[in-house]
């Protein structure tokens, strides 16, 4: 409603408005499918609402990843109701490499033929 007639004719503005509407309209549908596909349940309505908010943010993140990484397919995964921090804490666990000087280095192998 704040977009002037002039702006509304702009294809870029229309695209942004359309994307935002699509996102809001489809998020609930995607979240319902996500819960079914991955067997997700939440103990309280508050938890459910919070996870839905996280899920919506992750839809946008997947869209950003798709733009930055166009040769892969990005979208809803079983981690879509986790914040990036939760994802890192629960599923990643590699200590930072301090290349040990006592570890032997692999000999250089021939790579021709």
């Amino acid at each position, binding site marked *: 409603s704040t977009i002037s007639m002039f702006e509304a004719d702009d294809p870029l503005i229309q695209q942004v408005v359309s994307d935002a509407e699509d996102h809001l309209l489809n998020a609930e549908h995607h979240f319902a499918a996500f819960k079914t596909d991955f067997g997700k349940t939440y103990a309280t309505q508050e938890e459910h609402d919070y996870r839905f908010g996280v899920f919506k943010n*992750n839809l946008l993140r997947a869209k950003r*990843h798709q733009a930055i990484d166009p*040769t*892969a397919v990005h979208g809803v995964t*079983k981690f879509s109701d986790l914040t990036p921090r939760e994802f890192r804490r629960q599923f990643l*666990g*590699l*200590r930072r490499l301090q290349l040990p000087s006592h*570890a032997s280095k692999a000999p250089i192998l021939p*790579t021709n033929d």
Partner: protein
Amino acid sequence: LPSDFDWRDYGAVTNVKDQGSCGSCWSFSATGALEGAHFLATGELVSLSEQQLVDCDHECDPEEYGACDSGCNGGLMTTAFEYTLKAGGLEREQDYPYTGTDRGTCKFDQSKVVASVSNFSVISVDEDQIAANLVKNGPLAVGINAVFMQTYIGGVSCPFICSRRQDHGVLLVGYGSAGYAPIRFKEKPFWIIKNSWGANWGENGYYKICRGRNICGVDSMVSSVAALHTTTR
């Protein structure tokens, strides 16, 4: 070097596993590498115990005070190999099954060891050397930045920008010469990565990431392990 190579085609890779909500990726990466090395040494593919590493491996990096393998709080594949070398080896998955927690005590039984490490080494940041070591020595333990993996569904991941700070341990099992990259109008070579988030993630549990410029740090932390030729029970 062959233009395409995949250790799955030779039976050197066990089924995709699931680490659950536990930061034990390092242990899956380490067992995957030793499973492959044991296969090369003996011709037998055995699923090895990550839980043994989670419960019993508290090996520390001698160069950094307090940097120790620490169950669900993280670890490092090279220190896991060091532990395995000192402990005498790893038990079978079925003898010491995965629980997804690190609250248990160590229940390692040396009489049940089925795979042992003879030595391990780190590989230089050189894609040809990585490929050569992969083909010669079996699947390799690698570190990677996993930021794009949270939303990954399939295809060849080749982000324009990605941090090289590794935070996830995975297993390099092969490579391909031509993953189609339509937006760049050319075929792109890629690595084939086995992950430990179950078969319902990515491409049946696998991730493809493009080769060529150390994307997401995939070439920076690569280690190879060799297994002793042991006889099993």
